[in-house]
């Protein structure tokens, strides 16, 4: 692999030796921040501000109507005695653990199929990407609910093959598979990123491997996987974070209740119900911050472990 010095290293060393350029760069930075200003203002007012106040509220008993009263860590400690909270954690974790790898596997498989040179690839690429554009919408959640209901197409289709499950929507054991199918079906976004990654792998590596008599499995394990590992890492990280935040489809399919029997009580749905149905905004804020912390820790763990399996070009190993 080619060993080229990185762009940033080269420019930082030149900044040291040439002060005039540095002044120039200062002006550039000012102009840059000026152009960023509208976005920055929005970011501070609409994201950072509410986040800080929700951090404060998580230590209070704020109920939307009365001024918040400081109660210390009470919200955080009650969380772990709240059975519904623990249930929502269980539901969300099983969704993340099963849904995300399946979705990524589907995305990678389809990306590899689309990576070959065939006629009409542009069409297939768009067709496979389309579900991820509309998948998170309200209408798809409603369609999903109808499809998996009693005597819906899924029920009828399975009955044709002698599998009588009835409607999935009302069956606590089948709602999770239904949600996982919904997320797997939206594999378009990671697929496009995988496809871009696949295109970056030099064809001569495969050619050389073929010459040495490597089969498709060998090529995948020894060339595609290591060469693609930064992209896999990126997709895994983003999709995991994304999966923790599932809300709209769960809200719509369960009529905003998290039923049947709490099987669709996702973390964010319970957070919403606590805040806006039970008026316990302090409690909901504590839940939100706990989620931020947990997702932060998971991200950190991902980065730590990535050293052992993610390979970048230019690395010594």
């Amino acid at each position: 692999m080619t060993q080229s010095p990185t762009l940033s290293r080269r420019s930082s060393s030149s900044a040291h030796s040439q002060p005039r350029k540095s002044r120039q760069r200062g002006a550039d930075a000012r102009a840059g921040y000026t152009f960023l200003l509208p976005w920055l203002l929005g970011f501070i007012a609409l994201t950072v501000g509410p986040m800080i106040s929700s951090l404060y509220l998580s230590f209070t008993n704020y109920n939307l109507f009365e001024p918040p009263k400081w109660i210390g860590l009470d919200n955080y400690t009650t969380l772990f005695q709240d059975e519904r909270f623990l249930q929502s954690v269980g539901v969300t974790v099983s969704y993340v653990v099963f849904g995300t790898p399946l979705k990524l596997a589907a995305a990678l498989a389809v990306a590899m199929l689309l990576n070959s040179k065939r006629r009409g690839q542009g069409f297939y690429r768009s067709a496979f990407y389309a579900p991820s554009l509309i998948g998170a919408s309200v209408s798809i959640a409603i369609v999903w609910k109808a499809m998996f209901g009693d005597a819906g197409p899924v029920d009828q289709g399975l009955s044709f093959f002698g599998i009588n499950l009835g409607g999935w929507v009302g069956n606590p054991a089948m709602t999770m598979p239904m949600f996982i199918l919904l997320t797997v079906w939206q594999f378009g976004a990671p697929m496009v990123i995988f496809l871009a990654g696949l295109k970056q792998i030099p064809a001569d590596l495969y050619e050389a491997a073929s010459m040495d008599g490597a089969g498709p499995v060998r090529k995948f394990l020894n060339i595609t996987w290591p060469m693609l590992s930064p992209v896999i890492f990126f997709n895994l990280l983003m999709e995991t974070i994304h999966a923790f935040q599932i809300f709209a489809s769960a809200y719509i399919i369960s009529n905003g209740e998290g039923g049947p029997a709490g099987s669709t009580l996702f973390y964010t749905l319970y957070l919403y119900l606590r805040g806006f149905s039970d008026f316990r905004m302090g409690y909901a804020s504590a839940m939100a911050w706990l989620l931020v912390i947990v997702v932060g820790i998971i991200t950190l763990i991902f980065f730590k472990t990535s050293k052992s399996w993610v390979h970048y070009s230019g690395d010594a190993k």
Partner: protein
Amino acid sequence: MINRRHFLTTVAVGTASAAALAACGTGSSTSAGETGSAENPVTINYTWWGNDDRAERTRKAIALFEEKNPDIKVNGNFTDFAGYWQKRATEAAGGGLPDVMQWDLSYLRDYGQRNQLLDLGTVNINTDAFEKSLLPSGQIRGKTYGIPTSTNAFAVYYDPAKLASLGIAEPDGTWTYQEFNDFLAEVGAKSNGEIFGGTDYTGVWWMFNIWLRQNNIEAFTEDGKLGFTKDDMKKWWNQTAALRGTPAIVSEERVTQLAPKSPFGSNVTATEVTWDNFMAGYLADSGATELKLAPVPSDDPDNLGLFLKPSMLMVASAKTKYKDAAARFIDFMVNDPEVGQIFKTSRGVPASKTQRDGTTFEGTDKLVVDYEKSIEQYLKDAPEPPIVGFGTLEASFKRVASDLNYGKLTIDGAADAWFKEAEDLIKQNA
């Protein structure tokens, strides 16, 4: 080629952050309220929950009001019941509740006690034509926050055509719980499970409340605590223990699939226990030509535990700038006979005698009015507005009972779960 440094610096790690809304405004209001004129009318906002049918009726009522009051314009807005309360909570937090709102007894304390609603005793609304026993249900600690538009009472709906097709006699109007259970089981057995007897009535909070009253227990004490014990609750959920999982009761799977439509409205059950003003909705949903009402079962024939509840109330925001206009609109909506003609019994039976006498009831509307007359001798005082957070308790009662039907909880476990939530909530709001 993908380079580590380049790659890591371009990856922006988005962290999950569910941002909580935190704007808490305190608006000021003028004491007298602004008034308008025909040339320069004031506009008040009115919001309600309901279906398209109610929206159309409300539109007619508003048009009539504007015709009679050229100095006021009414801007109407509606959603379904569940979304309604989430919207109000957000608006209240932002200090922007609509001027006039349709309201439910379950949420009167939550908002009234927290100074979100206007004391209607300070404005001019005529309540002379109301039953004196009904008005306290809109009052908290001596202040009037809501005026009832209409009343409803609990009843057992049944579909006479379905019963006739199964060769089952119509109920005669008095039954014990055992007789009612046998009736549900008979429907399920004779229809071979095609039609279920009914939904599990022990999952309906108000039916539980009525049963408590039949046993002379008040659901909530005056100081906002629970008036019944865990054992009462277990006894109640045991009432239908033998019926769960049989064709007497529709399975929870079906109920969930059919939501938001009811099993009764979907022609899946032969009976339903609920408020009598659901008649019009059930007729429309099921397409049945006729539905009938019978009183709730009771083991004490002299005490049915029934009462007239305000099916809905009219309230105003404490921060409205147009108190006078809001009061005139509320007065019109609850008292005007022509409004009665527009709504008939779709809001319940009109609470104001002026409005009730000015309305002609025919067909199914007459059925509802006649039912409320027929139970008159059994009626007790309307309950006071339930405790703060009652809406949450009612929802969790339904949820726990549903878990019970799914077999996820035992009766003991269900009672424990509900009591834990209730006690936590009462402690929170104390």
